[in-house]
């Protein structure tokens, strides 16, 4: 029984253990490394599935350990954790397979996969953290574990990207720490409790708690790429495609968005955030980010850079939904946590496939690629239409809940932001689709890669197609109770039921 309730710890350990084993394996042990990688991913997926079933039935999962008086390492799995865990566990499996295919024959794979597993272990910690202290530890660990991945290639550009990444995120971490210390000093509880726990304190000293709020949000907002803290994200796109997927979809920006959700839902509480007048300001910041990211994406000619700015924009949908105090709009924000992950990982996998198979990095090189690589291009099409929010893709479901929910709580201006974002997304994705499918190929590509019958190696292609189908399925089957939408509704029900 104790083993059952400690499942969050086991899920975390499965990745941590994999990281240790991989670090110990010699570089040449390719088969063993692959086995450990995939086995860890599958085991974790199973553990997460068990937790998912448990949480749905109302079981509670938790593990706590006193590190020092007052400092408790606490892992727990509630509905919100599981939204994030499930996303990252599922996507980790595909990213692992993809990374194995992507890094075929490249040096330093042992280092790469070691940090890769460490990164996911940290993400598990962030997702299952039961208090701000635990959250902070894993949040920082995530930063440190990602740095070697960003700089993996070792080129001057990659080193620069890594340096900038570190500068931004460590500064953010410092702000977060300062916020946590101030909160503790002011007598607030660090524990994550649905509905928040600082209500009375915040009423007594609104100024102090506003400062704490912005320190916390500012610290976490770096990873969530809130303008003007987003600068690291477009620079970090020099990393290999699987790392981009990790940054943009599975772990890093998601940890930021998730952290903001925790602060608003479980530290301050939706009511308190709104009562302090912080929600609308955060929402406005998110709105600016949404528009700014899209406008910048328009001007990019590099595929991954355009996708990076698109992430800046799309992740703020989550923040927007969380910041406006309303159940339906919160569903929109939460469900976009999953939807954005599925769609963006699809797009980055596609960018990686093009780069690896045809050496394509710029948008103007994509002419006619749909004929050479139809599956990849079809996956990209699904992802891009989702980003625009064309029904019945997942992006439409997010938009529907954000828009209707915002109107219900009297924030009609959100519609204007959503509309502008839709138009901008169409403006920077549709021309890409036209090139893919309708432009004449600019040059002859070899029909097949040596040694494969498909358009590219199957280790790259299969994960790409599956995540694209998941992104489509999340929209088409949104009505199912186990869809991301159904789960987000469950979370909000529990948050607002209090």
């Amino acid at each position: 029984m104790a083993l059952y309730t400690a499942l969050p710890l086991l899920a975390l350990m499965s990745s941590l253990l994999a990281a240790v084993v991989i670090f110990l394996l010699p570089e040449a042990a390719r088969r063993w490394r692959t086995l450990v990688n995939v086995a860890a991913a599958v085991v974790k997926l199973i553990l997460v599935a068990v937790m998912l079933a448990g949480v749905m039935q109302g079981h509670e999962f938790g593990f706590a350990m006193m590190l020092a008086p007052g400092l408790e390492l606490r892992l727990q799995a509630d509905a919100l954790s599981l939204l994030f865990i499930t996303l990252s566990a599922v996507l980790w499996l595909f990213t692992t397979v993809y990374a194995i295919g992507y890094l075929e024959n490249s040096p330093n794979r042992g280092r790469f996969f070691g940090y890769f597993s460490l990164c996911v272990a940290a993400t598990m910690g962030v997702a299952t953290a039961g208090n701000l202290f635990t959250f902070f530890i894993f949040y920082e660990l995530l930063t440190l574990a990602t740095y070697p991945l960003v700089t993996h290639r070792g080129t001057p550009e990659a080193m620069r990207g890594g340096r900038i990444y570190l500068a931004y995120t460590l500064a953010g971490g410092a702000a977060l720490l300062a916020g946590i210390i101030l909160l503790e000093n002011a007598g607030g509880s660090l524990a994550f409790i649905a509905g928040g726990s600082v209500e009375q304190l915040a009423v007594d000293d609104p100024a102090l708690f506003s400062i704490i709020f912005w320190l916390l949000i500012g610290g976490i907002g770096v990873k969530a790429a809130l303008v003007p803290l987003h600068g690291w994200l477009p620079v970090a796109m020099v990393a290999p495609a699987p790392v981009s997927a990790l940054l943009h979809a599975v772990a890093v920006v998601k940890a930021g968005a998730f952290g903001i959700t925790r602060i608003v839902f479980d530290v301050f509480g939706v009511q308190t955030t709104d009562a302090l007048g912080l929600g609308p300001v955060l929402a406005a910041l998110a709105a600016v980010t949404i528009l700014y990211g899209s406008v910048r994406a328009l001007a990019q000619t590099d595929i991954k850079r355009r996708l990076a700015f698109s992430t800046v924009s799309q992740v703020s949908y989550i923040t927007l939904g969380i910041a406006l105090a309303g159940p339906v709009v919160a569903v929109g924000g939460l469900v976009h946590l999953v939807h954005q992950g599925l769609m963006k990982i699809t797009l980055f996998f596609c960018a990686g496939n093009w780069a690896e198979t045809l050496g394509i990095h710029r948008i103007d090189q994509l002419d006619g690629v749909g004929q050479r690589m139809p599956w990849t291009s079809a996956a990209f099409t699904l992802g891009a239409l989702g980003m625009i929010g064309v029904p019945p893709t997942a992006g439409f479901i997010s938009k529907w809940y954000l828009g209707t929910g915002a109107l219900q709580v009297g924030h009609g201006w959100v519609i204007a932001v959503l509309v502008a974002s839709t138009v901008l997304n169409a403006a920077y994705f549709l021309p890409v689709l036209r090139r893919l499918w309708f432009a004449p190929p600019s040059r002859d590509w070899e029909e097949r890669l040596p040694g494969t019958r498909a358009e590219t190696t199957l280790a790259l292609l299969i994960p790409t197609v599956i995540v694209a189908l998941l992104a489509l399925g999340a929209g088409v089957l949104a009505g199912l109770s186990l869809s991301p939408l159904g789960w987000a509704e469950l979370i909000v029900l529990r948050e607002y039921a209090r």
Partner: protein
Amino acid sequence: MMLLLATGVPLLLALLLLVVPQSGRGVASLAPLAALPLLGAAILGGELRLDSLVLGLHLSVTAQAVPMLLLAGVLWTAAGIAARARFNGTGEGRRYWIFHLLTLCGNAGVFLAQDLAGLYTAYALMTFAAYGLVIHDLTDAALRAGRVYLVMAIAAEVLLLCALLMLGARLGNAPLAEAAATIATHPQANLLLALVFTGFAVKMGTMPLHVWLPLAHPQAPVPASAVLSGVIVKAGLMGWLGLLPPGEGPAAQWSSVVIMLGLISAFAAAALGLTQQRAKSLLAYSTVSQMGLVTLLLGVGLSSPEAWQAMLPVATLFALHHGLAKGALFLAMGVGVAWRGWLMAIAALAIAGLPLSSGAFAKAAAKAFIDNAATEAWAVMLPGLLALSSVLTTLLLLRFLWLAWRPAEPARGSTANAVNAGWLLAVGASVLVVPVWLWLQAPASLAYALQPGQLWSALWPLLLAAVVGAAGFALRARIGLPVLPEGDLVVPAERVLGWLSSHQRPYRSLPQLRGVTLRGLHATLSRRSRHIERRHLDVSIGGMLLMAVALVITWLLVL
């Protein structure tokens, strides 16, 4: 069951083509049949609820959908047969069929969907898939038409999205009827009405939102032109009928505006069509003009709930008649036989309203409806205006027959006979379906149209037009029509946009701006920040303007 087949079969075939390229030949022989379940749905009716799809999909056959389903079933089948002949065994066929089938699926969904999200989903699928049909030939002209089409389509989608979100905020994913009733009592009823009307008006080609239509419809391959002009424009009508409040609340105040927009479209498009040099473009303008008449009927229907109920069968009958006849005319453009002119004349004169043709029945029903339902002022003016529009329409179609009587080039495709089969089906349907439909549904209306007085009032505009046309033809060397480009207003609009984009390129104007105003500021920033994101300041002027606009909107809305 029929509803599942009607939407599912095209979708499955399209997916099969996408996933298994080798299936091309087999699917191509099945694809023309994919529209037949629509006829089954029209006859048998039915209802389908799929709660787990999207936000709860609800399909059902409403009374006003039946004529539309008949139209779609016949015309998509005819177009499918024509397309099969044209693309038989060619490599481009697969791409064509994928978009053909996806558009068909979306089209079926639009006619059947009964929930907000479902309608929007089907509408989007149809709109985006039809882009593939418009640009199928991949010529510069086709790509330009596609660009204009897409820009207008996205603008329309966005307007509809706003309306749907406003309705969804109150009702969730509500049934259309409930949403339409809610618009009437909504505090922002006029805004919602404007959004819904304008959003669907783009598809209907209501002036001045018609500019994409004379570009896009003629550029598509012949079978696609037929469904675009014949059925897909009617999706706009079905949107209006589904979502506009049935003559309630502030809708009545919109009646006159909509009537006038309809009249402007009917007359201006016919006049613009006369200046066209290509037969297909002229047909596209004729579609704008005829849809103007449907818009006019809608306008009369908006005036009261009773008028709305009376309008439904009349407007859909008109759409049925026009769709079949226009489809037959477009399909004729792909036929290479010398005698095609004679059969074209039948469909063309039906649109002009020749007595005993489908057009005469549709127009008689429209006239009777206007006599009964229109407010006094309009009831006095409209019959005369309608007769005048018949004169113009007849002139337009005479010019079309003159331009297109003989095939200019041999039809593409290996088996010309099969082209004829699809075309003949459309011609036959355009002659028979409307009278049979009336005979079954409204015998009184059929008898009314056959009264001598009605026959005469349908005939004299044609005779007048024949005289005018003959005179114009005799004097053509002296008067000479002006030649206007297809898409009329889009040409100056493109020029303005082109000028703007050539002068406002991102990165072109900004170095100066930075040099003048931001250099000092920039120098004071640490060297480091310049490294961090070298192009941080390179937001285009357009982007800044957009953000400024968004902020102003935000500010206004907050106030």
